[in-house]
């Protein structure tokens, strides 16, 4: 992983992070990027939000 990944790289990592534990170097690269990029911070927030949404959706479907 490059030390200075692009938004495209960081997006892929955020999504892969749902499927596998990320490496320490990958996590550092993401954190450095978030320091300077509002858009990717928002994307991270949206992804975290989607985990909450999916959980609520499963419950909604179970009770509907």
């Amino acid at each position: 992983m490059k030390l200075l990944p692009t938004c495209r790289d960081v997006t892929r990592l955020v999504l892969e992070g749902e499927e596998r534990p990320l490496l320490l170097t990958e996590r550092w690269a993401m954190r450095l990027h978030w320091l300077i990029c509002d858009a990717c911070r928002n994307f991270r927030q949206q992804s975290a939000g989607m985990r909450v949404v999916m959980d609520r959706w499963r419950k909604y479907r179970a009770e509907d």
Partner: protein
Amino acid sequence: MTDFPSQVESLRPQLLRFARTQLRNEAWAEDAVSDTLLAALEKPQSFAGLSQLKTWLVGVLKHKLVDQLRRHAREATALTDEDAQDLDDGLFDSSGHWRTPPVDWGDPEAHCNRREFFEVLEACVEHLPSAQGRVFMMREWLELDSAEICKELQITTTNLWVLLHRARLRLRECLQMRWFDGRPAPT
């Protein structure tokens, strides 16, 4: 109190709806639901009300859905043109920057209190290309992990990750367009 067979039968439409969103194939969905209802009728049990019966039937259905996916694995993972389309080139410019930067969605809980939100979410999931929709539902609704999905569908981890990556980006785009755009910014 109606009899057990008619109670079971009354839940068929809802089971069929769940089966369709997971399988994206009418014949497979009918088979999974019939298997489920048959299993229930062969082993009548007593439940405290319809909602408990439904919970039990949905649990049985989930297993039958995995059976169908395993049986039709090759067809279930065949990529449509839409599945194969790489979204990244549309989302990022040549230097890897967002073309349209993601915005603040605010508190997810606030949206989850609205029934309409889930209706939009379900519509967006139904709009996913079929292979993406199937693996996304296996991951998020059947709650299988990557390894289990790969085993049932006989696909590689890399293939699965690509499909989930595209599915999640598509879903995000759809929610942005159909729910978050045109709503006041969070305070």
